[in-house]
């Protein structure tokens, strides 16, 4: 959920909308924000599942330290979505386990 109005920070500043694709579904994002913010704003809370037990994980630290928020972004696994800004057309996938690296050519 977006914080549209804020008593101290004022109304949400206008920014360009960027569209990203999450597991095949298009969602809007604010230009420049981290992927994790766009996902939470869209109500997506499970970012990956763990390697062995398949347990769900979502953002925990939001500052790039815990790696709970990693996802596969444009084919590259283990991208920390809380510190990686969105880009138009970015393809994001919920990561299963350690993810799969793209084939090395």
């Amino acid at each position, binding site marked *: 959920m977006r914080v549209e*109005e*804020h*008593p*101290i920070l004022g109304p949400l500043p206008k920014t360009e909308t960027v569209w990203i694709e999450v597991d095949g579904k298009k969602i809007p994002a604010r230009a420049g924000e981290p992927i994790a913010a766009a996902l939470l704003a869209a109500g997506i809370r499970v970012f990956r599942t763990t390697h062995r037990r398949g347990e769900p994980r979502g953002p925990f630290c939001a500052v790039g330290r815990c790696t709970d928020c990693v996802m596969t972004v444009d084919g590259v696994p283990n991208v920390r979505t809380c510190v990686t800004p969105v880009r138009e057309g970015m393809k994001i996938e919920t990561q299963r386990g350690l993810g799969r690296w793209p084939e090395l050519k």
Partner: protein
Amino acid sequence: MEGRPVAVIECPEEIPCNPCETACPQGAIQIGNPITRRPRLDAARCTGCGLCVAACPGLAIFLVKEEADTAEVTFPYEFLPLPQVGDVVTAVGREGQPLGAARVVAVRQVRTSDGTWLVTLAVPRALSSEVRGMRRL
């Protein structure tokens, strides 16, 4: 102090803080050295301007004006939506407990506000030392 608003400071601990002292144009609040001393108010000097109320990071200062049987309590408010003058809201005490309906008589900002509103409620005089806020709208 009948008839005019006077600051009431509820800052019970020795914490490293003194914006109330710096904000007061009348020199009515004293902390001195070290900065962890508790603020002391010289009520006779206080004009009720509210600059300290908005400056206090602890939101620990209020204004109380007492008349014969009514009173006005002013508190810092930083939530949306804002109440409007004339609205009837639920006055609350220090534990957030409801203390009855109260009319909003002023909603304003001062030089030290930077987003902090000063809301004034009209309350029965008996509640002047109980009411310290309002239920969020």
